[in-house]
């Protein structure tokens, strides 16, 4: 039988790195094939080569047994290859429908397309409003647009780059169901993920990459998560021990936080109540777009419209203060977007220190102390094992995972009293993710109060002391991690919580 897709000795070198070194890959019709590897292993480059957006330096591509040269994504789509990118290629100022129409013939009827988008989205359980402008969408919603865009084309090969991070556990099951159905209809699926459990549950075959080379091909159902991760990074990630802890004093408290949405497609925050204690991690679960962005902005000070007393930091009303003033009072924040928000891409790592370290060491009489920021940057790079040429490297030149390590490191080094972290390990490889989580736990043990917003339930269950769920702008009552189950949290993600019952349950256990 012919393979759907075969790659032979694909090689692609960039000026500084060989991203793909003689890669072989076989994907059968109807096969769900996973590509596993750390960030920088060359997975993305390989996918871009298959999708025609990058040209290989050498090697052959066979499509249904015939050698092809895929010059651009349009040709790839013509062959029947669709791709959902990890980094979205969407235009902010266009609507969902218009964005999807860009990849289609010019005479597409937008109304009909809009209807098809709604239907396809509905079929796969992906809530999506085709009329919305992309700039109003959260990261998770953007990814939904990409998935629906790919599915609309009825592809023969679907490439998915970490698609499940935005879905509830129930929706992941639903997506897997869809993918299995697609596969049974003969569509091949290339599935890139760092979630080993998912790969083991879903995929028929797995190609492991490390440092631009294929290091193994296996049947993931016959491997354990530990053995897979060993193949990928060469060692096992450190496990984090769960231990019951006594909460310290209240560091951050939210009292009846209401916040009107700032744009038509935002989420209004309604009656948010939460106490965050020293020495605990509270995890915020929920499907993205349910008010997490708004809550984070209200907490960080990027959106200073809240009632002053609605947000109390260590007994002080901070609802109206900007981010710099809150930071002076001991708040730290790691935002969801690394480039352009957590760091300025065109500035050096050293200069990016000044975004959050604004004190007497870094600024003297209004002048930047370059020696000091250089030193801080260098110490973050060495302590957090950031792969970077040095403090002078621009933030934009780092890979996503390394930049995330740097930003988390930068905030951790400030010794904040309260640290708010959004998607700590989004798109970060297993090794770096484990390291980041360990740092957060170490910070908790040192007495910091942490609020972690994540779309990855596994992660929240791993590090949190208590969990809350956000849905439709409201926050569920907190529940101890030891009492929470994936099913319960998944149910809460749809907004179905019994506020009275659980509060009393909480009171019993408190």
């Amino acid at each position, binding site marked *: 039988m012919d393979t759907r897709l075969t790659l032979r000795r694909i090689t692609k070198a960039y000026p500084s790195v060989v991203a793909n070194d003689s890669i072989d890959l076989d994907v059968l019709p109807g096969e769900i094939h996973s590509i596993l590897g750390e960030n920088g292993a060359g997975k993305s480059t390989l996918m871009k080569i298959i999708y025609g957006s990058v040209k290989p330096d050498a090697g052959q591509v066979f499509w249904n047994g015939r050698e092809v040269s895929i010059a651009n994504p349009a040709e790839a789509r013509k062959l029947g290859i669709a791709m959902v990118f990890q980094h979205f290629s969407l235009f902010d100022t266009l609507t969902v429908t218009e964005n999807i129409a860009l990849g289609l013939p010019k005479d597409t009827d937008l109304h009909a397309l809009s209807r098809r988008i709604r239907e396809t989205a509905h079929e796969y359980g992906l809530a999506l409003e085709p009329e919305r402008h992309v700039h109003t969408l959260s990261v998770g919603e953007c990814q939904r647009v990409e998935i629906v865009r790919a599915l609309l084309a009825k592809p023969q090969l679907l490439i998915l780059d970490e698609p499940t991070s935005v879905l509830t556990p129930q929706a992941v099951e639903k997506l897997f169901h869809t993918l299995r159905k697609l596969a049974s209809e003969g569509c091949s699926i290339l599935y890139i993920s760092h979630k080993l459990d998912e790969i083991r549950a879903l995929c028929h075959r797995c190609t492991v990459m490390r440092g631009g080379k294929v290091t193994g091909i296996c049947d993931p159902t016959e491997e354990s998560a530990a053995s897979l991760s060993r193949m990928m990074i060469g060692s096992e990630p450190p496990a984090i021990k769960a231990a019951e802890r006594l909460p310290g004093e209240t560091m951050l408290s939210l009292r009846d936080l209401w916040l009107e949405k700032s744009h038509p497609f935002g989420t209004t925050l309604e009656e948010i109540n939460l106490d965050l204690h020293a020495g605990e991690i509270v995890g915020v679960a929920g499907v993205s777009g349910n008010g997490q962005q708004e809550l984070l902005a209200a907490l960080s000070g*990027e959106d200073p419209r809240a009632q002053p007393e609605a947000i109390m930091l260590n007994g002080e009303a901070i609802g109206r203060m*900007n981010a710099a003033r809150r930071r002076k009072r001991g708040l730290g924040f790691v935002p969801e*977007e690394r480039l352009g*928000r957590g760091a*300025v891409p065109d500035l050096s790592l050293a*200069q990016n220190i000044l975004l959050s370290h604004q004190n007497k060491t870094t*600024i003297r009489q*209004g002048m930047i102390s370059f020696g000091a920021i250089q030193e801080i940057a260098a110490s973050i790079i060495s302590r957090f094992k950031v792969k970077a040429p040095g403090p002078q490297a621009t933030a934009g030149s780092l890979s996503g995972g390394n930049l995330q390590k740097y930003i988390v490191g930068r905030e951790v080094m400030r010794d904040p009293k309260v640290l708010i972290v959004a998607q700590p390990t989004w798109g970060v490889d297993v090794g770096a993710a484990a390291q980041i989580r360990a740092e957060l736990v170490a910070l908790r043990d040192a007495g910091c109060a942490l609020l972690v917003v994540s779309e990855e339930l596994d992660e929240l269950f791993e590090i949190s002391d208590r969990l809350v769920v956000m849905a439709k702008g409201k926050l569920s009552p907190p529940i101890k991690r030891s009492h929470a189950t994936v099913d319960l949290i998944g149910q809460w993600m749809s907004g179905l919580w019994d506020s009275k019952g659980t509060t009393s349950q909480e009171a019993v256990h408190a």
Partner: protein
Amino acid sequence: MLKLEKRPSPSALMAWLSPVFAVLLTVVCGVILFVALGKNPVTGLAVFFLEPIKDLQGWSEVGVKVAPLLLIAVGLAICFRANVFNIGAEGQLVVGAITGGAVGLYFDHGEGGGALMITLVLLAGMAGGMAWAAITAFLRDRFNANEILVSLMLVYVAQLLLSLLVHGPLRDPEGFNFPQSRMLSDGFLLPNIVNGTRLHLGFVMAMVASALGWLFLSRSFAGYRLQVGGMAPAAARYAGFSSRKALWTSMLTCGALAGVAGVAEVLGPIGQLTPSVSPGYGFAAIIVAYVGRLHPVGVVFSSFIMALFYIGGELSQSRLGMPNAITGVFQGILLFSLLACDVLIHYQLKLRK
């Protein structure tokens, strides 16, 4: 067919060399232009690039033009780095000339003056430029009005205001109805820094502005905040840097520098208020700012080139009988060449197979 392909890593060296290539390309275009007009290109280029600087007198005249160009370009570099697209520096210059000139005329009774008085007049010009820039800043801040349009339209308002004043209240009663003010007396004029030339103190002020601008942008935390706001607004919000502060700081700084440039023209080479105090320095400075890579020291070199174009343009009219559009043509070619060269920093040309 040719196509543009993004370079994996843009060269920093090329980013700095691009303006040099742009100038060379402008020279090449100049040669083509002279040939097309039936002039000897060698003489043509000599008039533009050698004649203006063949002696001290020539150098000093170039310096006279560098002064306003450099002052404004430093201000614009600060604005553009903060992503505040103030293109109305010409208007701020004109209003600076008006307020400074008016204060000078008010106190000037044919005698007196001196350092204190000149300082007062300069401050008045600075305040005028800042006030004009403040209108744009306010409308942008309060109503989110587009600063490009507002500042540009205010240029024409400023020019009409100047015209109104020199035709009316500020007209010299003994000036045979010419639309111009009295000449300021010597005590009110900026002192010359080289004897026997017109090179005045404004040149020194421009060089100081360039040095201070460099200090502000590359060494101060205030300058850092401003640039983060320009490069990544979300990061500025994350850090807690105020975008309003950046808008006001950059607009007022640029307005102040443009205002000084305007009043320095009145107190320097012109000596009175006339309907036209500037041959478009405020607009030319936009090109100067970009050719100088929005760098307060880089603009020193680009303002020198631009000053050459001004003088070369005048000379080629008298020597070669070229039309007076020649300066504008050269400015335009320079800007286009720069934009073309800048594209090649980030992209490379490839033959599509």
